[in-house]
């Protein structure tokens, strides 16, 4: 299993150079049946990453560019009267796909956002009173731009919580950037990536992840981490139970991705920043950002003893 994961990561790495940790986290997110939020500046490879992921996982892929005048029907689909058959027929929206890239999700109105988020949570959409199942598996990779927030509708905390992880890509290191500049990476579409993971394997992987052993000591550590966010000063609000479930789920996947059938504290430490940082709200007294809060949490909470 580990070889397959490593191969997948390497394959995605062909499209997105020098970003192996982020690729692994994104993969972990998808393997944990979670949706992914990528927050970064334009041109950092957000679309490339999601496209590459869709290719290597062999998933159908659609992309929606969110704008302020986008309506729910534009995503979900619409019933149109067919003259020929004298009946309403449903025109599927772009959401009926296995992997949806929701670009700049914070540019659209809360109404459209919530239509998407409902679909993310339930795995189904309801149009004109008729409930339609979305394809399985169904992933959403949403992106948002942290700067230039004028004219945007920032996602409220309650909706951020629906994303399993939030990752940031960051600037590439000089070597990766140079090889990118000199190489033949002019456009995302031009690279054809090999499909590494079949859908059946994906499902099998998920089943295996559910069986990864979490020992008492690891659960204690997880609860200490969560507990710290709830009581320590610096946090306006801590992690919700959904947050702790997300932590455990991601840690299991992460452990399996590294070829283990049990969680070790390192797994939790690796996924904590991506899983927790967008769910936390810093106290107004706290000078740093959420990442500083996570660093503080990791440094404070003892791995072994309470």
């Amino acid at each position, binding site marked *: 299993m580990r070889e397959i994961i490593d191969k997948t990561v390497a394959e995605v790495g062909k499209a997105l150079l020098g970003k192996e940790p982020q690729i692994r986290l994104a993969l972990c997110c998808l393997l944990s049946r979670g949706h992914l939020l990528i927050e970064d500046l334009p041109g950092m490879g957000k679309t490339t990453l999601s496209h590459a992921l869709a290719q290597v996982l062999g998933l159908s892929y659609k992309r929606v560019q969110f704008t302020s005048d986008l309506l729910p029907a534009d995503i979900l689909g619409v019933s149109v009267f067919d003259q020929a058959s004298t009946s309403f027929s449903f025109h599927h929206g772009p959401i009926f796909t296995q992997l949806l890239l929701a670009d700049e999700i914070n540019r659209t109105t809360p109404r459209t956002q919530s239509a998407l988020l409902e679909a993310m949570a339930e795995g189904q959409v309801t149009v004109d009173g008729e409930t339609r199942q979305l394809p399985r598996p169904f992933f959403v990779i949403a992106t948002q731009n942290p700067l230039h927030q004028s004219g945007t509708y920032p996602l409220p905390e309650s909706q951020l919580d629906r994303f399993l992880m939030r990752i940031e890509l960051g600037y590439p290191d000089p070597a990766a950037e140079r090889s990118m500049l000199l190489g033949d990476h002019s456009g995302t579409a031009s690279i054809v990536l090999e499909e590494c993971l079949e859908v059946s394997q994906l499902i099998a992987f998920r089943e295996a992840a559910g069986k990864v*052993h979490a*020992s*008492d*000591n*690891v659960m204690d550590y997880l609860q200490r981490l969560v507990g710290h966010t709830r009581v320590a000063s610096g946090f306006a609000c801590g992690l919700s139970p959904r947050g702790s479930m997300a932590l455990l789920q991601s840690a299991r996947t992460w452990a399996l991705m590294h070829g283990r*059938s*049990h*969680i*070790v*504290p*390192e797994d939790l*430490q690796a996924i904590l920043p991506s899983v927790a940082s967008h769910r936390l709200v810093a106290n107004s007294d706290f000078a740093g950002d959420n990442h500083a809060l996570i660093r503080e949490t*990791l*440094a*404070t*909470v*003892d*791995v*072994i*003893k*309470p």
Partner: protein
Amino acid sequence: MKLEQQIPRNALIWIVLAQFSLLLPHLGRVPMWLVLVYVAAAGTRVLVYQGRWSFPSRGVKVVCAATCLGGIWLSYDSLIGLEPTVALLLVAFSLKLLELAQKKDAYLLLFLAYFVCVTEFLFSQELQVTLYLLAVVTVITAALVALQQPEKLEFSLLPLRRAGVMLLQAFPLMLILFLVFPRIDPLWSVPLQRQAAKSGVSNFMSPGDISNLSLSGDVAFRVQFDDFVPARSQLYWRGLVFSKLEDSTWRALTWSEVPANERRPLVVQNLVGQRFDYSVLLEATQQNWLYSLRYARPSDLGVMSTNDFRLQSPIELEDQKEYRVSSWTDIPIELELSDWRREVETQLPLSGNSRTRELAQQMYSEAGEDSRSFVRATMAMFTEQDFHYTLRPPRLGGNSMDEFLFESRRGFCEHYAAVFVYMMRAAGVPARVVAGYQGGELSPINGTLIVHQFDAHAWAEVWLPGEGWVRADPTAAIAPERIERGLQYSMGDDEGFLSGSPLSPLRYRNVAWVNLLRLRLDAMNYSWQRLVMEFDSAKQYNLLSGLIGEISPARIATLVGVIWMLVLGPVLYTLLRRPARAKLDPATLSYLDFCDRMAAQGCVREPRETPADYARRAIEQRPEWGEQVMAITGAYETLSYLPPLQDQEAQLQKLRNLVRGFRPRKQ
């Protein structure tokens, strides 16, 4: 200056508050300029705090200190002695504000404050003072707490609350130390400067010299009767016996005036009649005589009887003294009078007061030379003729008896007692003046009899054949209400009663609630003094022998040890107990043991480090540990994170052995 050395604003307020409340009780005692020094120092410190001034330079401080030293020298004429030393301490305490720049200065000042607190006890040890100082200690502790608080906190009462809680927690320990801690005599003692007694009983009496008797409402002593209290008219507290008249002054016989064979105390063998048992708590008198009803027999070792049926302490009373006495008020004393005694008790100066002598001899022969009738006739003379009881008698000259008896006829107890004894002696009847207190105020709160200084009294004793010494109080003949009800009820305020204590609550004794409050306060003070102030090494010894039987160093050590464990045991338990570790699984406990061993070698695990991270770092630092560290870490990870194994116990034992075998040596 670094931030952590600064004095928090909050603490500065508490420090100034603590200092002020410490100086407050000393106000009446120190010269006025000392208060000004404190106000100036505190004002300067506040201006420094506001940033308007800076700290005074070394030169200014030296000048200040030298000036204050000179001021104390001028005010007291000395730098040695209790009051100048305390004033010196207070000045230093105030001036320290001028260099209160860092936290360490504040600590010094506050620790000094605790010491200054104690100095107040050199002057007064009453309950009220103790309660006040307890409050001051709380404020000082609050200042110490405030010093530990972050700068950003505003002024709050939180330190006070915390200090209160801390002191309450310390209370049981204080109680135990008070009861059990050995009371060792001090290696040095402070020369206490006591004020002389304002009124009351002194060791001589010359009534003619006093024209305006000033009475004080201070408490002389308190008496607690075991069963019941004698009638007020029987409460004659004998203190001194004046047998000698010299230059119109009555005084007691000195030790050398008594022949050796007369010095032993006289003891009444056949004790019959009404018996009263009581304990007396006497305030410090700086004298060594004690007060009792006649015929008194002491129960304490430190109290001696004398040859004139008084009680006496071998040392002067610099502190309060409590003693137990049994009295037989009806029993005749000294039925047989020795020749020496008869001679002494009939002795008069060779000349003077001739009219009095004549009158006495004439009355004696009229009474048929019978002492009993003569006493009765003399008493009748005081009642029937125009004699007055007043606290403001005219001054009398050289022949004071004649002047009193035939001209002024105005006086108080001392005049009457003196003239009565003079007349008795002039007729050859043995008689003497007795000084002490008469009556007392029975407190309804706790049944204590409070005897005030204004209850001081003088009366006479006459020796009658077949009856021994008999009390004769001419004042009772002239002003019976003085004996029946007490001075405070027989005198108006204009008569000079309590003119020595203008603020005494006794002045308002007619206001019911003031009177009740006064008596209640007195009852509390009495309990305080009996239970706390009087708890000396002897009482401690009794308490201890009641607790543990025979007193031996080993038993004391055991007792102190047991109490120590009772008090400190729970504290130690909570401190040393590792509550978290108790719940941990054995593998983790073993691993933490390993961590401790590593930490002892200077390789401390960071909280965030996982076992693997820690092992990596440890091996980086000390490669020679490599194998052992890897083995232990591997074993622990297996036990801790893998699903339970078949041979879990064996694995655990393996980890334990590995950890036990890990004995790194220092580099």
